């Protein structure tokens, strides 16, 4: 448990046991496997990358290969307790549309994303260059992260979309929590985590 990523542990803490989960952009299935083992959840991962899909199958995780940009139309309303979008929001074409879809298909949504308001990003921007960091390792021209935002930006969008934030956390790039993060989350948090539902 100790060697697990803190963001995954926070998500696991948030989720009720035995619930039904859809993990959007589930990668190699680590999070779903963690949730299955620690919380007895069931559900599916959605993933586009070929190697990740194979990894999920090897782990015994249900995975459906599809492009999130094509939407969640094949899933019925309220068919899951939680829809998780872990470090993927910034890489989709229509984040706003996807958030709406998440709350159509699931009762609650959980989103994590790299905070563009992190102080080091701000410093690099002040220096005249697009930020490159451990959480955002790509150059502007080859990054899959096309919709970066800060904590405040995300919360603004939630208000506009009538989304109620139930819980939030920030962690640093090593997925640790520190005191400073609680005081100045938008400045010191590298990764933001939100749990929310329809207001």
């Amino acid at each position, binding site marked *: 448990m100790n060697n697990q990523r803190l963001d995954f542990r926070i998500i696991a803490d948030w989720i009720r046991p035995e619930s*039904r989960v859809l993990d959007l952009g589930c990668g190699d299935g680590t999070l779903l496997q963690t949730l299955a083992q620690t919380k007895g959840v*069931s559900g*599916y991962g959605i993933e586009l990358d*070929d190697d990740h*899909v*194979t990894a*999920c*199958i*090897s782990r*015994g*995780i*249900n*995975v*459906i*290969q*599809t492009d999130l940009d094509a939407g969640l139309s*094949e*899933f*019925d309303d309220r*068919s899951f307790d939680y829809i998780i979008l872990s470090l993927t929001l910034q890489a989709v074409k229509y984040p706003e549309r996807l958030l709406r879809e998440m709350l159509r298909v699931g009762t609650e949504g959980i989103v994590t994303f790299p905070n563009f308001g992190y102080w080091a990003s701000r410093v690099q921007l002040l220096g005249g260059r697009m930020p490159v960091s451990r959480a955002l390792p790509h150059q502007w021209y080859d990054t899959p992260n096309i919709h970066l935002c800060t904590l405040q930006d995300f919360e603004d969008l939630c208000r506009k979309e009538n989304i109620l934030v139930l819980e939030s956390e920030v962690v640093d790039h090593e997925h640790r929590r520190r005191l400073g993060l609680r005081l100045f989350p938008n400045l010191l948090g590298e990764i933001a985590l939100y749990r929310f539902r329809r207001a």
Partner: protein
Amino acid sequence: MKAIPPDSVGLVTPARLRVEQPLVLSSGGVLASYDLVYETYGELDHAHSNAVLICHALSGSHHVAGYHSADDAKPGWWEQHVGPGKSIDTRRFFVVACNNIGSCYGSTGPASVNPATGRPYGPDFPMVTVRDWVESQARLADALGITQWAAVVGGSLGGMQALHWAIDYPTRLRHAIIIAAAPKLTAQNIAFNEVARQAILTDPDFHGGRFYDHNTEPRRGLRIARMLGHITYLSDDIMREKFGRDIRGGKLNFDYQVAFEVESYLRYQADTFVGRFDANTYLLMTKALDYFDPARETDGDLSRALARVQAASLVLSFTSDWRFPSARSREIVKALHDNDLDVSYADIKAPHGHDAFLMRIPRYVDIFRAYMERVAVA
């Protein structure tokens, strides 16, 4: 005698099961008794828990892997995926492959002798459906002492049988592997089948299906049906890549002999089909495809049709398959997850079209093998 590759199951001999218990068919017809020809590879374990059933497609047979004799030019139709160390590893699984009734490869079919008349059934052979095949395969499972398959696997029409197994016998399989299939045919799919059937039915040598009595067969019709089929098995891209507009001999002859390479390919496929396939079987198989629709009894609601399913499933499609495109597999996936069933789905990038399911594509092998690992441990 040429050497048989070490990753082949090697020389295999078909077996035959005589079933005396009458089979009541979906059509209402009854087969009082019938033969099932099948092959097995690998060893059935003590618990009888490692058996995998492979269902064949339209023109397939029980001869899935290996060679019938050292002189065979070609191995079984799924040699690429079945054998020691392959996707379906015969060192771990006991593989059973059954020839479907209505076929022309040994199981009772239209060319078999009708015990009531002493002559070939021909058009009197009752129409069979995917459900009927599942029923007959269950009799074979009983005879082999297999109460539950580790997995039922199939591509195309074979995948439809795997799906039907999960519906009809929820507790008799742990996994269904449904490859390049669809939950039912579209109007376009049926249209292609109908043209193929018309080619056969209107051939003067068809004789109302009693061509056996005339010592002939509707070769022209069967050839055209096969050529048409092969067009739908390949993608536009792979046809361009394989044949393009390449001209035989490099110049146009201004006649109706083979000019383009693709014509030569289709004629070759047609030539090798005639003589090894029965025209009545072709008619029956295409009808079984057309009629396949497990959601018919639930007002077209596939999710409800799958309500009794318990098996976990792997559904695979191929990006260039336009006969049963990925979207059709997604319909199956949706119906499975609507029922909260364990299901995984992958859309495999492959240029080959529908035929891709027969091929050894590295990514296809990776996923297939990874899933079979799960089947083995469960």
